[in-house]
């Protein structure tokens, strides 16, 4: 495995993250946290790999299953509530008749 390459990827992604997040308006800090929280549930990838293996032990299966449930909960609720919040952010509404 090429760890060195992984470290490069990590450093570049972290810098990119810093630059992107710095530009986010404080207005949106809560939805931003929900969104990044949802993105962190990318661990569902690992969970699928662990629980989907051919000759996984019972321990792996059980841990993997709980991990899939937990990551999916994080993922689904994270994305849904971020969208629910963002729907509410409106500019001044047009004058009522």
């Amino acid at each position, binding site marked *: *495995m090429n*760890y060195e390459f*992984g470290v490069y*990827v*990590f450093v570049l*992604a972290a810098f*990119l*993250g810093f630059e*992107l997040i*710095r530009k986010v*308006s404080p*207005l*949106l*800090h*809560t939805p*931003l*946290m929900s969104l*990044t*929280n*949802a*993105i*962190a549930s*990318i*661990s*569902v*990838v*690992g*969970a*699928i790999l*662990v*629980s*989907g*293996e051919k000759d996984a*032990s019972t*321990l792996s299966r059980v*841990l*993997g*299953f*709980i*991990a*899939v*449930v*937990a*990551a*999916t*909960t*994080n*993922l*689904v*609720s*994270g*994305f*849904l*509530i*971020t969208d*629910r919040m963002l729907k*509410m*952010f409106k*500019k*001044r509404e047009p004058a009522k008749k």
Partner: protein
Amino acid sequence: MNPGIYQALYIISAASFILALKWMSAPATSRRAVISGEIGMLLAIVATLLRQEVISYEWIAAGLIVGSAIGVPLAMLMPMTHVPQRTAISQACGALASALIGTAEYFRQLPHGFTMGALVLETLLGFLTFTASLMAFGKLQELLPSRPITFRGQNFFNLGILVIAVALGGSLVFHPENTIIFSIFVLLALVFGVLMIIPIGGADMPTVIALLNSYAGLSACAMGFALDNKLLIIAGALDGSSGLILSIIMCRAMNRSFTNVLFGGFGQLQAAVAGQEAKPVRSASPDEAAAILGDARSVVIIPGYGMAVAQAQHKIRELHDILIKRGVDVKFAIHPVAGRMPGHMNVLLAEADVPYDKLIEMEDINGEMAMTDVALVVGANDIVNPAALNDPTSPIAGMPILDAYKSRTIMVIKRGMSPGFAGIDNELYYMDKTLMLFGDAKSFVAGIVKELSSNH
């Protein structure tokens, strides 16, 4: 299946996450950001399911269904005032997933060297974020006392636990076969998560939630190293840097350092202040407050956590509407750490349909405060306390505040005279131009609105 295909999907997925963060920068593009994030996640899941290592699908399908069944109501039924709690519990889930995968991988391969190091980091961060987020949830939901709990030698004790956990983790890198050590290591990580949150009080929650967000991301990142998966490294690093930068912003908004938030114990002064004798304050009824607001030309409303507790945001919006109709200039001043998570007040006011261009950040509104007729403080305390500027011995000395004290009249809606979260007395309440409006924020504002709408 050809590994090239899932690798390609992973790359598109990573790019979608990056675009999601980019589009998150402004309200106009932010909903596109969510869609991009969702596409990224969907591609990641589909690509993983297509990998040839994944043979059995029953458990995965069951897990995805159960997780969705929990996740949907968690997102759709939570009131907006509970967003910090939801974030905490969701973070706990993500961290738990990461920690359990690390554990499963450990028992599967008992790896040496670099991979084991990554697994140690993944499980350490995962398990401590899991219990810490649960504790934060408990405190935010008020299942646990939300004031900080401190005891003598606490920092020493907590650090000791962490050092032992790290040392055990280090020894596992060289001798992974010792599963008893691994179990003790996991236990210590879980315990440290709990201990970490015990001394944290409500006012520090924004920083801590952001920090835990960062840990959860870094745990996923470490998993990426352990599984040699670049997508996990990228997504984890994005989340890790996002959480870190937000917690730095929060720290700066309180003029405190990281170590101070984590090891400071903000609440120790409570006892010292309690003995003071009561000073006189001027109070006013809803009718009197309505008369003053109705005659004002400019009003700045300063919301704090008390507004969230009283669910007063909709009534405040009514007050905003009625004042606007009378030709009053109404703005909202938002302190970065108002509430229990970064941006908490913005979400609540947006929920109540306050247009977001009325929500002004601290640096931009402070210059206008001296020209403002009425500053209406709703359930906020420390963020308007002039002691932060005047009293170098105050625990909040140096914290940037909203300059409510500069405006011509100050009105403070408050339940009673109890000191704020930090236990610090607020001289703003005793100024000659300050009126205290005692009562529940929601019903008091309702009273003002009623009075204003009946006489014009």
